Structure formats: C-alpha cells, structure tokens
C-alpha cells in the first residue's frame, strides 16, 4: 500500500515537473495540475495511511486510535484542492489572454522584453 501510494506520488510529480519545464503554456498548465494532484495525494498520506476508517473517535471510553484516521490532513487537502482548482482556472485564462494578445503560446518572454526594438514574437 505504502509503496503503491509512494510510486503514484512520485510518478505524478515527475511527469508534472517534466511538463512544467516545457516551452508552451498548455503542457505547463497540465503539468501544474499533475503536480497539485501529486501534492494532494501526499497531503492525505501525511496523517497516516488508513483504509476504511472514519475521522471520528468512537465511543466515550479511552480513545481507540486503531479505528481512527487523522481528519486534519483531509481538511488540508480539501483546502488545497479548492485553491489549486481556482489557480488552474486563473492560469488557463491568463495564458489564453497572453496567446490572444501575443500571438503565440510560448512561456518565455519575447525578444522585445530584453532588447530595444526586438521582435515581439
């Protein structure tokens, strides 16, 4: 179980980093999404890997932690999902704007940013 989750996180992070380093905006957006998936999965595991256990302590007696999973990482993950979802929308809209205004979907700055009279492409 641990190995499976670890491999999943690693594979998603690796493909995310590879895609983020691409030159065009579309792969970069996909890469960002992959990386945030990997991190969300990682956050869920930070409490403890526990399957089919409620995040609530049962009964009134002495706490039984074997039938319990930490609720805090789930709350953190939920926050992270909401934020990364919103951010993805922002970056999609922004890159669309940059594509429409600039005429291409490259990530790096055109030459006119570095040199006077440089090409805008």
């Amino acid at each position, binding site marked *: 179980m641990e190995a499976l989750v670890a491999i999943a996180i690693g594979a998603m992070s690796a493909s995310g980093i590879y895609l983020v380093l691409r030159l065009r905006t579309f792969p970069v957006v996909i890469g*960002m999404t992959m990386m945030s998936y990997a*991190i969300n999965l*990682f956050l869920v595991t930070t409490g403890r890997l526990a399957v089919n256990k409620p995040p609530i302590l049962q009964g009134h007696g002495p706490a039984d932690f074997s039938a319990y999973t930490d609720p805090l*990482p789930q709350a953190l993950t939920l926050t992270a999902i909401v934020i990364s979802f919103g951010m993805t929308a922002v*970056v999609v809209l922004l890159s669309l704007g940059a594509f429409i205004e600039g005429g291409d979907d490259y990530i790096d*700055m055109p030459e006119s*940013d570095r040199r006077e009279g440089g090409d805008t492409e």
Partner: protein
Amino acid sequence: MNHFIIAPVVLPAIIGGLIILWMRHDLLLQRVFSTVGSALLLGVALYLAFHANTGEVFVYRLGNWPAPFGIVLMLDRLAGLMLVLTAFLGLVVQLYGIGSGWDRKGWHFHALWQFQMMGVMGAFLTGDAFNLFVFFEVLLIASYGLMIHGGGALRLRAGVQYVVINLIGSTLFLAALGTLYAVTGTLNMADMAVKVAQMPASDTAILRAGAVLLMLVFAIKAALVPLHFWLPSTYANAPGPVAALFAIMSKVGVYAIIRFYTLVFPGDGAVESLISDMLLPAALITLVVGQVGVLGGRHMGRVAAMSAIASIGTLVIAVSMFTPASISAALYYTIHSTLTGAALFLIADMIAARRGGDLWLTLRPKIQNSGLIAALFFAAAIAAAGLPPMSGFIGKLLVLDATRLDPWWIGIWATILITSLFAIVGFGRAGSTLFWLPFQLQRIEQQAEAEGKPAPRAPIPPKLEPDEHIQDIGDAVSPALAFAATGALLAGLVLLTVFAGPALRMTDTIAEQLFSPHPYVESVLTNQEGARP
C-alpha cells in the same frame, strides 16, 4: 483591543467586497472608499503597533477555539512594524495609482488592491503555518490581477510566468507543510516550536528536509538566487504602482524566513546551522547578480527590478547571521529597502508616462518635469546605492557591523562594498542617459532651428484612453498627487535617516523579542483563559 487584531484582515476584505458589489462602475466612489479604507488601515496598524510595542505578545483565537486546534493570529513587535510599513506603503502607492490615472486602465484596481492588503496583513499576523499558506494564496491571487492590470502582450506574458512560478511555489509550500505536519503533528507555529525542541536528534532527518523545503518556498517569494528568474520581467512589466507595492511582497518572504527560523527552527535546535549555511552564499550571489544587473540594465524598469534583487541580497546576508544584532540590522534595512524600491518604481513609471511607455536607456527628447523627476531619481538612487546621507548608508553600515564576527566577514564585506560601486555606476549611467543626454538632443534641435530647418521634435499627444495598456501623462488625473506620493516615500527615507537612533532602538527590541520565543509559546498555548474547553 482584543478584536482589533483581526481588523487589518477584515477591514480590507469588507471594503474590497463593497467596491466590487456596489461601485464597480463608479470610479470616483471606488477611489474615495479605497483611500479612506487604506487610511483607516494605517490607523489600525499604528494602533496595533503601539500596543505591540509594550512587548506583550497578543493572541487572537479565531472562533475562540483553544490553540493548537484552532487558528491563532499573533501580534508581536515584528508583526506590528510590518503592519505599519505595509499600510503606509499601500496608502501612498495607492494615491500614486489614483494621481497617475493607472486605476482606470482596467477593471477592479481598487478592489484587488484591498484584497492584496488583506493577504499581506494576514500573512504578517497569522500564527498558524497552514493559515500562512492560505494568506499567501490570497495575496498572490490579488497580485495576479494587479500584475496584469491594463493588459498588453508583454505584461500578460510576464503575468503567465509569474503565476506559474508562484503556483510551483505554492505546491512546494504544501509539500513542506505536509512533511512538517507528518513529523510534528501540528501546524501551529508556537506548538511546532515546542514539538521540534522536544524531538530526539536521531529523528530529525525528515524535519530538516521539511525545513529546507519551506526555506525554498520563502526564497522563491523573496527572489533569492537561483530562484530569482521570475522577478525582473514581472516587475519591469507590471504597472508602476503595482511594482511599487510588490516591494513589500518580497519582504513577506524575508519576514517568513525570520519568523520561522527564529521561532520554530532556531539555530541551536534540531536544524542547527543548516539554514544559515545555505542562506549566506545564496544571499551573496543574489547581491552580486542584482548589482551587476543594475550596472548592465538597458531598461529602467529592469534596473529598478535588479536593484530590488540586490536589496534582498543585502537583507538576507544580515538575516543569515541569525544574531539579535543582525536581525535588527535586517529589519532596519527592510524598512529602507521597501521604501526605496517602491520610490524607484514610481519614478520609473513617471518617466515612462512622459516617454510614451518607453523606458529603454537610450537617447530620447527631454521629458516634461525633467528637473523635478531627476531630483527624485537622484535621491532614490543614492538611497538604493547606499551612499550617505540617505538611510541606505546607515543600513549597509549596520549590516557590515553585524557580519563583523562571522568567519566569512572578509568575503561578505568585499561583496557588499564592491557591488555598491556597481550600483553607483549603474544608477549614474541610467540617470545621465535619462536626464542629461536629452540636453544634447535639444542643442542639435536648436541648431537646426537656427539654420531655419523644422525641428524634428515629436510632442507626445495627450490622450484619454482607459483601455490603452501604456499609461501616458495625458491620462494622469493629477500629476501633482503622483509627485506628492513619490515624495512621501522619499520623506519616509529622510525620516528613517534622521531618526535612525530611535528606529534602531525599536528594531533592537524587536530582535530581542524574536530571540526569546518563550513568551510566544506561553501566550499561545498556556494562558488560554476564555477559550472554549
């Protein structure tokens, strides 16, 4: 007093919301509300700083839940200082935004401005690591909107880069927080400090990884080499007042470094000197890269951006010592470099407005108000280069003094002093190109006129197009207000120089408080009367 601690977060949130809901079509109302809101915010910040200056650590428990289970806001001397600095910068630069007409170049300038203030204020106040992440996101989302305010191909492209690098930063932040939570089981900073101190030395491997990951996040925010590549294009292409406000954003990264690595991971704890060993070389290289950039810049916006990077370098050199004297020097330099950086960007924007958005350092006709702008530029450049009599000189002196006992001191002193020369030459070149070379052109024109030929002068046409992405002097509602705002920043620098003694005594007490973290733990975790059981 108690509920006032959350006012710096709630007040801009309410004003920003009101502006969006009720007055999105009425710029005048927006201006009035936003300015009054920012002025109130400055008042609240001063009030809080006054109370924090008694040395007590005030804690605000959200929803009255007991720490470490609920989120807490923490007001100490450092937070008080940063609140006042942010509120002052926010108000002054906003007035510049109104005076120069930038706020009608696109939609929702004032609303985004208020949300930006909310995020920065929250980041300075929070005492919870995950809440710090949330406030970072708030300030980043607002800054994305402000960054691309006015539009334009280059600005949007730079905006995409800015958003992507910050999204990667946020991802790293979450990874760091997850790691720290997995090891310590808490996200409250004071509680984390207790847990980290109790941890046996054999178990700290993952903790150290988490600490370094967290430092990387803050280094991206602060633009430390090699994580600085996003900054020059972003700052040079952002609207002038926005770039000036961003002067406080990189300081948020430095603030977080100071906060985390004095409270949670002190140098004598589990992480040892790992952080300062990494920060010092990075800061030295940052300083060199920044000042060489000032020397070699071909665009005034980039010169100002590179000078911002250099100031972060100087600042982090002082921070990386992690002694009370060096933190005190760093805080003094923080105030100085925030005001200087903002003033430089505003001056660059005033020049751009009079040259049709063109900031390349090449020969152009003489600009309007050339003399006055040149005087402002001269003052800001002297402050940025660290020449006497401005506060940059005192700040650099303090940094040099604080690094005196470091084994690397020769290298540190040589780097700071030699790169200062780069900055002097760089600013001298930029200033003479912008303000003196045009006189040469004027002479040629006068000669041509004397010989009866028509003058090849091209006057900048006045225009009033709110959708144009380049701000022009013809769009300025009140150039006098713009000058006054820039002058207010420089006046702040003069006050910082004249009252260097009291300012230093204040930063000394802040550093002293930071290096005795016991009261934090005490007030957050032990004295919890009134909290829900």
